[in-house]
């Protein structure tokens, strides 16, 4: 008699179950798969970029300035003779670092603030709420502009400015979700079991509020990169000669009219692809975690 293999529900590991769900979501929505692959490629480039590029992204060579794409220089050269392809690839690291640091900071700080204000209420809630309202009252880019102009345009300050303007969302969601569950059964049970408030917040409440936040994280990653690009355009971005997509697009933009389109197009395409990838990733994550919330 043939033995029919069936997935044994009891012994299937959590990981295997998750993988099965993942494959289902991806097959429903091929665009998500595309997004995940793209993300993987970017991460690879961010880690290994500097080692695999043909030219030194900082080395100038004015005799071969402003050359169109060719076999030697796949993306052409810029006004100082630097290889655009190498710069675009190496820029992945800086841009991803800016995006991930900014979002990580705002995620962590925002969640903590939100959890605390949602759990304790009272004055904590009021103070945090008012501060968040103040931040939210400013048009976001204007606030980022002001912060970077006041503190100076270093990478750290750009990260901090982006983190601050993204703070309110995480705080609000965390606060709302913790507030709802504050008196839920499992929370009371955990309290009875002797958990301290800190443990309660960290291990019991926080995991429940992760789903809506995760999606916003991926959207914010894209927004952080675009924000840095906008700051570069008005002269408040990273300092030269650091390769960063935003500043390469901003500087390359002035060369479009004179016909040297490659200076702006390739970093612009890379930037767009990265943000695109993050946005689609957000959709995919949403499907993975909580398909009902899909928009």
């Amino acid at each position, binding site marked *: 008699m043939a033995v029919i293999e069936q997935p044994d529900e009891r012994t299937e590991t959590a990981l295997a179950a998750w993988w099965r769900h993942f494959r289902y979501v991806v097959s429903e929505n091929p665009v998500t798969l595309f997004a995940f692959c793209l993300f993987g490629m970017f991460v690879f480039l961010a880690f290994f970029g500097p080692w695999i590029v043909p030219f030194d992204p900082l080395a*100038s060579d004015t005799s071969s*300035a402003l050359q169109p794409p060719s076999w030697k220089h796949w993306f052409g050269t810029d006004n*100082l003779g630097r290889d655009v392809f190498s710069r675009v690839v190496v820029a992945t690291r800086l841009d991803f670092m800016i995006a991930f640091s900014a979002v990580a900071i705002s995620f962590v700080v925002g969640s903590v603030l939100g959890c605390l204000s949602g759990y304790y209420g009272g004055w904590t809630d009021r103070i945090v709420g008012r501060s968040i309202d103040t931040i939210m009252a400013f048009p976001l880019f204007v606030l980022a502009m002001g912060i970077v102009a006041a503190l100076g345009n270093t990478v750290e300050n750009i990260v901090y400015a982006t983190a601050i303007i993204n703070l309110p969302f995480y705080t609000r969601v965390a606060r709302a979700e913790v507030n709802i569950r504050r008196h839920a059964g499992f929370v009371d049970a955990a309290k009875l079991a002797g958990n301290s408030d800190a443990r309660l917040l960290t291990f019991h409440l926080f995991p429940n509020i992760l789903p809506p936040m995760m999606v916003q994280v991926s959207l914010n990653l894209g927004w952080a990169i675009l924000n840095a690009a906008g700051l570069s355009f008005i*002269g408040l971005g990273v*300092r*030269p*000669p650091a390769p960063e997509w935003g500043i390469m697009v901003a500087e390359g933009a002035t060369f479009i*009219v*004179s016909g040297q389109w490659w200076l702006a197009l390739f970093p612009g395409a890379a930037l767009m692809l990265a943000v695109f990838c993050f946005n689609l990733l957000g959709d995919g994550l949403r499907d993975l975690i909580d398909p009902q919330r899909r928009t």
Partner: protein
Amino acid sequence: MKRRDFLKTSGLVAGVGMFPMLRHIPASAAGRDNTVVVVLPNGPNSMDIHRSGTNRPSYAIAVNVYDRLVSFGSKTLANGTTMYNYEDIVPELAESWTLAPDGMSMTFALRKDAVFHDGSPVTAEDVKWSFDRAVSVGGFPTVQMKAGSLEKPEQFSVVDPHTFKIDFIRKSKLTLPDVGVPVPIIINSKAALKHATEKDPWALEYMHRNPLGGGAFMVDRWDPGVQIVYKRFDDWKSGPMPGVERVIVREVPSASTRRALIEKGDADISLDLPARDFRELADAGKVNVQGAPIENSMYALGLNMNFEPFKNKLVRQAVAYSIPYKEIFEAAAYGRGVPMYGGKSMKPATIDWPQPYPYDTDYNRAKELLAEAGYKDGFEVPISFNLGFADWSEPAALLVQEGLGKIGVKSTLDKVPGANWRTKALVEKSLPMHMKNFGGWLNYPDYYFFWVYQHGHLFNSMNYRNEEVEALVEATLNLPIDDPAYEPNIKRMLEIAFDEVPLIPFYQPFLDVATQKNVKGYEYWFHRQLDVRNLSKGDA
């Protein structure tokens, strides 16, 4: 059908003489020929050059809307560009002037038929009030007047309604040219006094928005931040009648857009494009690019004497040998300038100014000097530049950084916003290594040294002090150029500058302007603003 052609043929004429009622400026061919459209990055922020806080583009108002006693003639360069002639002082409001026999005063005979824009006649009273104002308001105008030894109202007197006299404090070759710079404008004092108050005797508040001049053009409308429109003053007597009736000067912040506009023919004159665009436009040949070297001006690197390594002359010379001059000339100037490197000898042969300093790229020499000075392992230094000049400063700074790297000196780029630049570079003089771009209005080398090499003076951002130079500048500033002591003094100053090299020049920049082929009469002026009085439109 192209949009431009549509406008031309649609004939939106509502009545030429009814200008204020006009909805549209006539777009017929004749209409356009009488109008010149200029685009530039920033416009004026005041109508009054004497007011504090007035920006550079406002000087154009002083040039076009007000008269001065004298002006400068013109000459043509080898490359076809017309520029003002520093040595040729020509009448404007004053028909003639005579130096007193003792050389200590000058009397100006004013035109009898000159009128202000409101129709009232111009008298010597107006001239005296205007000169008094210029030396009394303080700030930049007063300092500029001082450069020509015009310091006190007591120096100015009215001999009769059409004769004006200036008494000198000292004899100076700079006095007469200083009367022709934009600052000593002739204001309609009768109209101004109507708006003067106890607290504001010079009517600064009113004249900030309302010009009271008698120059070749009037301000037809001023939309701050958008445009300024000049209209010809048909009763102007102080010079030949301008060739165009109306000049529209539009603010377009984006350089790419300004370039697109001139290339498509939607603008007649485009100012302040990046050097690269000018070179490409010149090569393409569809528009005229006229470039004149900006007089008495150099783009250079300043080394601060308060920074420890730079206290040693050998280190400064090492830096001078490590700069990739040719690459900077290519990548920052795009060839639109005069190289200021590669001079033949440490002793200047002539007193031409600016002239190339005797340094060129030589990394071995640089390394030797550095080792000799005891800095074999190099040091670290930030290279600062003004964000507003990033066009040329940034590529230059990047290349300097590379050159320094080759001799073991590590550097970082420090972009300083324009607001902060003045304070840090010129007032506090705290930047160890920075880009410099000073250019003097009065075209003498001693004038440059006065501002840049004299200890404590504003543009001496290097904190440089040399007793011999101090003495030489003092002695030379007021000497006429045909004095036997003049030339040797200048040569000695240059020799010291070459040797000590607290300032390392890259190149003398061009002031470039792109014009449509049918626009004639553009002239380069030391104040670098557009003088619209000679413009005309002819056949291409």
